[in-house]
């Protein structure tokens, strides 16, 4: 019941998105808007006026939703996802969700651990005016959870992180630290003074 309604709703927004996004090149849309539902956008669908989307033309041919480009994929040696929240139970559930999603998508999990909680305490006066001896104390507890993933490609990282982030519960913050691997660029392989010997300059 819910699924066909959701699809129709997504298609109406698809019309708006497609007309807006068609100016982007083919590279950008391999995993763009990887919403957990079905509105993955294909880069080279023809530009049709929005009225035609209410007919069944989009369904007739089943287009492949994946676009392959020539651009080399980024390689991440490590992606570290740190989630912060005020409630430990919520972080427990989120960790279960993230680890299961990583396993299903074939992502390598190297470490899942819980850094110690931080408690921020402050003591304030209880009353608006005078009564210095009567104070009230507040504290804010921040719990952490860290999921370290290793050996991810750019596409996989994009898909996984978007999925994780769209399902981040309210009241939870996230920091993602990515370590990209790069080759030594060509201009650092050999010193340039062999080809361009330096003239004698006055020393500083």
């Amino acid at each position, binding site marked *: *019941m*819910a*699924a066909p*309604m959701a699809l129709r709703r997504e298609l109406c927004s698809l019309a708006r998105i497609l007309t807006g996004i068609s100016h982007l090149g083919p590279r950008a849309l*391999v*995993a763009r808007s*990887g919403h*957990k539902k*079905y509105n993955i956008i294909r880069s080279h669908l023809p530009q049709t006026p929005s009225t035609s989307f209410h007919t069944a033309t989009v369904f007739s041919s089943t287009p492949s939703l*994946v676009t392959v480009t020539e651009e080399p*994929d980024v*390689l991440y*040696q490590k992606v570290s996802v740190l989630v912060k929240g005020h*409630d430990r139970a*919520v972080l427990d*559930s*989120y960790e279960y*969700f993230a680890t*299961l*999603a990583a396993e*299903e*998508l*074939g992502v*390598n999990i190297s470490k899942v651990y819980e850094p110690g909680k931080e408690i921020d305490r402050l003591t304030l006066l209880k009353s608006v005016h005078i009564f210095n001896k009567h104070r009230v104390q507040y504290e804010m507890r921040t719990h952490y959870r860290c999921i370290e993933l290793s*050996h*991810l*490609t*750019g*596409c*996989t990282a994009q*898909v*996984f992180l978007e*999925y994780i982030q769209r*399902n981040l*519960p*309210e*009241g*939870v*913050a*996230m*920091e*993602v*630290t*990515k*370590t*990209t*691997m*790069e*080759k*030594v*660029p060509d*201009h*650092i392989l*050999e*010193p*340039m*003074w062999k080809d361009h010997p*330096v003239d*004698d300059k006055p*020393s500083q």
Partner: protein
Amino acid sequence: MATRTGRSLLCLGRTHIRALGLQNAAGRVTYATEEPANHQSRFTGPPDRRNKGPFAKKPRRNEGQSRAERMSVDQDWTAVYPSAMPFRANTVPLPVRMGYPVKGGVPSQKRGNLELIKIPNFLHLTPAAIKKHCKALKPFCTEWPSALDTDAKCDEHFPIKVESTDYLSAGPSVRNPSARIVHLKVKLSSLNLDDHARKKMLKLVGEKYCKATDVLTIKTDSCPLRKQNFEYAMYLLTVLYHESWKTEAWEAEKTVADMEEYSWEESPSQKNLLDILVRMKVAGEGEGEEVREQLLGRREVQEYKDSVTRLKNEGDSDSTMLQYKEAVKKVFNL
């Protein structure tokens, strides 16, 4: 589907809706703006208030069974909670209780429980739902190259590591200024540097080099965008590399105090040792350069040289002191 019909029927207003009996064929949803087919004929005028008075309450209809009680055990839960939604007590068929109990009591039931509604729930992310989502997302993932399975191989082919952080939190702004910071880490052993270039690079870089791990870290945050900071970091690396290969004229004025490592040749230790050995007449009678050269070639003198160099470079430790002691004993035949 009965609840959806019920909700839409309630929207139509307080008329005799019970009698209307809107039939939803094949999942059509009735909206409040739709006029039901036989609305006109059933509307019989304002309700009868003769016996009740001006402020009497409308009689409440029977609730009937909640949706949770009518659910089957093998239903598709992903259709009940397809996305993040608040907790609804009559939709979740679990006997859940939450809240601090009164004295001698138990936590309150789920019906009308605000605590259950406040806390974020993961009912839309059951393992079945996650598997379904991942199955749909799997075609967009790419495989990690199988030739790079160990960290050592990764370091060998891709020695430069670039680290950056993304921040995600709820607040007045989506942006976080710390997201522009870029750390570039590279092992100096993977760069093409000769001896002089390496020493000059270490002097240029100073604090940014970690001797234990042989890693040079360049942290850039002066530009407003991450891409710009990354390009600046690569530029700095390029400049450091090429400058360290250049030999300036003033580098010839390097004194003993500037040296990074201790070298025994031309040091006071060598002079003192040779003086002592000549005076002890180890190599027989005679003064001059040839005697010194001959002494230098001796095995004990070389061992002494090694032990002193090691002591000065590595610092005091048991093994270095022991080696020095053995070397001294051998040189002086003690």
